């Protein structure tokens, strides 16, 4: 199922979603030549920002998840996600790839917008799946995706998301 057909998540508000977006988890211009390199670079960013200690374990979990089917959901969007023992809290990393990354997406097109979602195996709020659903929802409209791709910083990204009409 592609972005356009996916159902919205009823469980997460825009406000809750915006709370997950943090300035240290914003990569303004991700450059990578493959899916694995893109994952490694995003994980390296998390390690550099002290969000995760053991990046190799996290990269392995994310790459293994990709073996179930690509998280490149089409229309230039990818949502790499996994639970891992090394993740302390539900975390959302955003990366914009201006040139696009060959990510083996379901539609074969390059990916420009990455929303990486990480969660511990046990989380009190149980917000992992609602967060996944919310990302699909806010990236459904072409106008919203264009605005996000233009956003060079966190505030501009938040403004783009705030304009998304929730059905």
């Amino acid at each position, binding site marked *: *199922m592609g972005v356009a057909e996916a159902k919205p998540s009823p469980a997460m508000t825009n406000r809750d979603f915006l709370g997950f977006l943090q300035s240290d988890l914003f990569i303004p211009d991700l450059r990578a030549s493959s899916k694995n390199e893109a994952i490694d670079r995003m994980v390296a960013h998390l390690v550099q920002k002290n969000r995760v200690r053991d990046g*190799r374990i996290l990269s392995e979990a994310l790459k293994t998840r990709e073996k179930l089917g690509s*998280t490149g959901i089409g229309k230039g969007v990818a949502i790499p996600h996994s639970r891992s023992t090394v993740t302390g809290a539900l975390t959302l990393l955003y990366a914009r790839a201006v040139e696009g990354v060959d990510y083996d997406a379901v539609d074969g097109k390059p990916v420009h917008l990455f929303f990486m979602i990480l969660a*511990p195996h046990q989380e009190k709020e149980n917000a992992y799946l609602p967060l996944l659903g919310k990302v699909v929802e806010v990236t459904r409209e072409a106008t919203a995706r264009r605005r996000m791709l233009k956003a060079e910083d966190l505030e501009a990204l938040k403004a783009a998301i705030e304009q998304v009409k929730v059905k």
Partner: protein
Amino acid sequence: MNPQLEILIMLQDVDLMIREVSDLKTARQMSRIGFEIDEMDNLRDAREELARKVEPDLLTTYQRLMEKYQRAIVPVRNNVCLACFLKQPTKYSVTDEAIRWCSHCKRILYFI
């Protein structure tokens, strides 16, 4: 980090991923969101590849703990095991090269 612990954590992540996507309710939710689970065999292959790299005694202990507790390796924060919430000996630390077991519930510890 102890190389065997690193592989063991990767193995646990895959085992719990298999368990999660095998759960019908979760699979339905994932499908509703837009993610179909297509290639379970790939996950099982990845699991077997990791399991082969673990020393046999350690693998047996891990599997026994997984059966008993659902999770064999648990996070530790501020020297507290986040599974049984009991304090660990002060000599345990994040820089330990040795694999540490919770002194109370006996699960394997990962210092987060």
